[in-house]
C-alpha cells in the first residue's frame, strides 16, 4: 500500500503482554507475543481472531487503557507512554461494553464526552446535532440512554467516539449483539466516515465475513500474528480455488493425494484441502480416484477464513473449544 504521510497511523513493534498468574500456583499467561504491524493513515483495518486469540488484550493496549509492558506502540509518530494525552485526544474508542451513562440523556452523554475532550460548548452542540442526524438518532437525543434499543445505543456510542473528530477510530467487536443486516449496515456506516473525513478505522472481529471487505487486516491466533496484508493478497496466497474433501480416513487420503499431485495439500481435522487452479476438472478426477473414501466434496474460492486455516492448521475457533 502506498503511504502518503511519513508516519503510519499506527505502528506496533515487538509487543508482548503477559498476565501475571491468577493464583499463586497458577502460571503466567502470555496473551500477546512479539506482535508487530503497521496501519496506514486512512485505512479501514481489521484485526481478526477467534475468542482467546489476544484481540481484547491488543485492544486494551491500543485504546491506551493499559500501557504496553514491552515493545513500542506509536500513533502518528507519537509514542504511547510519552505523549499519552496528545495521542488520546486523537483517538476515538468504541469499547465492546457500552461506555455510555445509561441514566443520562443522549445529549448529556455527548456533552460529557465533548468536555472531557476539551471541546468548546458550541462545537459540541453543532457536531452532536450533525452526528446524531447522520446516524439517525436525532429524534431521541433528549431521552435517557437506558430507553434506547441496543442498536440505537450502539449508534450513540459511535457518535460519542466520533464527536471530537478523531484521526483514528478504534472499535472492539463493534457489531456484537447486532443481527446480520444491522451488522453490515454498521460497517457500511464506518466506511462512510472513513471516506468522508479520512478517518483511519481499526476494528476487531471474530466474524470471518467482517474481515473480507477491509483495506488490510491482521490475523491473530493464540497471541501471535499469523498473517497480515490486504485480503486480496492473503487470498492469493492460496490457489484460485480450493477443494475440500471430508473423509473417514483423512490421514491416508492426504498421503495418497500428496503422492499423486504436485499441489499444496493439507489436512484440517477430518478434511483434506487441495489448492488448485482448475477445480471443475480436478473434482471429477479426485472423485473417480477416491470413490468410497471421500464422503463430502466441496469447492470454493478462497476466503480470509481459508487463509486462517492454512496458516494455523486448524479451524477458526476459540482456544477453549474442543475439536469438532
Amino acid at each position: 500500500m502506498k503511504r502518503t504521510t511519513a508516519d503510519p497511523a499506527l505502528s506496533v513493534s515487538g509487543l508482548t503482554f503477559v498476565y501475571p498468574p491468577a493464583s499463586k500456583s497458577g502460571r503466567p499467561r502470555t496473551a500477546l507475543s512479539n506482535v508487530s504491524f503497521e496501519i496506514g493513515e486512512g485505512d479501514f483495518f481489521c484485526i481478526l481472531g477467534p475468542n482467546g486469540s489476544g484481540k481484547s488484550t491488543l485492544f486494551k493496549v491500543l485504546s491506551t487503557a493499559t500501557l504496553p509492558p514491552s515493545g513500542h506502540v506509536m500513533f502518528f509518530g507519537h509514542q504511547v507512554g510519552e505523549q499519552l494525552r496528545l495521542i488520546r485526544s486523537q483517538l476515538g474508542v468504541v469499547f465492546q461494553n457500552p461506555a455510555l451513562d445509561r441514566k443520562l440523556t443522549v445529549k448529556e452523554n455527548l456533552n460529557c464526552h465533548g468536555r472531557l475532550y476539551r471541546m468548546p460548548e458550541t462545537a459540541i452542540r453543532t457536531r452532536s446535532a450533525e452526528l446524531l442526524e447522520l446516524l439517525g438518532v436525532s429524534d431521541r437525543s433528549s431521552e435517557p440512554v437506558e430507553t434506547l434499543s441496543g442498536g440505537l445505543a450502539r449508534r450513540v456510542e459511535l457518535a460519542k467516539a466520533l464527536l471530537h473528530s478523531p484521526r483514528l477510530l478504534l472499535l472492539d467487536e463493534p457489531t456484537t449483539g447486532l443481527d446480520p443486516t444491522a451488522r453490515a449496515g454498521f460497517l457500511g456506516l464506518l466506511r462512510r466516515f472513513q471516506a468522508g473525513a479520512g478517518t483511519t478505522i481499526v476494528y476487531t472481529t471474530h466474524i470471518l465475513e467482517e474481515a473480507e471487505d477491509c483495506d488490510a487486516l491482521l490475523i491473530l491466533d493464540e497471541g501471535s500474528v499469523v498473517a497480515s496484508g490486504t485480503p486480496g493478497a492473503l487470498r492469493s496466497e492460496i490457489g484460485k480455488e480450493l477443494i475440500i474433501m471430508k473423509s473417514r480416513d483423512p490421514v491416508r487420503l492426504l498421503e495418497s493425494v500428496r503422492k499423486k499431485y504436485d499441489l499444496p495439500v493439507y489436512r484440517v481435522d477430518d478434511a483434506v484441502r487441495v489448492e488448485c487452479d482448475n477445480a471443475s476438472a480436478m473434482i471429477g478426477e479426485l472423485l473417480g480416484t477416491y470413490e468410497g473414501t471421500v464422503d463430502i466434496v466441496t469447492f470454493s474460492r478462497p476466503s480470509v477464513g481459508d487463509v486462517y486455516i492454512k496458516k494455523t492448521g486448524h479451524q477458526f475457533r476459540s482456544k477453549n473449544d474442543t475439536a469438532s
Partner: protein
Amino acid sequence: MNPGRISPDPTAGTSGLIPGAAVLWKREMLHFLRQRARLVGFIGSPVIFWIVIGSGFNRSFSYTGARPDISYLEFYFPGTIVLTMLFTAIFASISIIEDRHSGFLQGVLVAPVPRLSISSGKILGAASLALMQALLLLLLVPVLGIGLSPASVVLSVLSLVILAVGLAGLGFLIAWRMDTTQGFHAVMNLLLIPLWLLSGSLFPVHGAASWIEKIMLCNPLYYGMSTFRQALYLASVPEPQEVLPLPLNFAIISIFSVVMLFLSARSAKTRKT
C-alpha cells in the same frame, strides 16, 4: 523526523484537570437528580433515624458533662448529621465501582484528562451530595433551640465541608481497587459502622469505658464529630465538653481530608485499568 515527537505534549501535566473534574462532578449531580428513590431517602431516612434513636434513648440517657439537662434527641442531632454524611459521601463515591462495571469509566480513562480529574470529580460530587444533605438537616437547628451566631454557622458549615471531602475521599480510596460492590458490604460492616459508633455521635466520650475511650481517640471521625459539635454550640453556654480545643480539632480533620485526597489521587494514578 517528526517535529511532534520532540515538542512537549501541550496536553500534559495538569491541564484539563478542572474541566475534567467539573464535568464529572456535574454528572454526579445529574445522576442524583434522576434517581427519585435516592431523593426521598436523602432526607427521609436520616430524619427517621434521628427521631427513632433520639426519642428511644431519651429517658435512658444521662449526660454527665457540662449540660446535664440536654435531651438525647438534642445530643444525638449532630451525630445524625455526621452519620448521614458518612453514608452519603461514601456511598456516592463507591458508585465508581458501578461506573467501572457499567463501562462508563473505561471511556473516561482513555480521555485526554489527568487521572486526578477523575478522582477529584468523583470525590467532589460525593462530598457535594453529603454536604447538601447535611445542610438541609441543619435547618432543624432552630427546632432544637440551639442558639446560633454568624461564627457558629460559618464554622459548622466549614467543618462539614472538610469532613465531607475527607469521607468521600475515604470512600473513593476503598472503592477504586474493588471490582464488585459485594466486597463493599464487608468494608461497611467492619469499618464504617465501627467508625461511626465510636465517633462520639451516639454516646459522649466521657461516659464510655476507658478502653472504648482510647479507641475513640484514635478515630478520625471522632475529631470530625467534636469539631462539628463545638462549632455548632459556639454561641451556647456552657460549651459541650470535648477533649481537644476547636482549632486543634479543625487541624486534625483538615489533615485527615488532605491525606484522603492525596491517597485517592495516588491510587487513581496507579491502577492500570
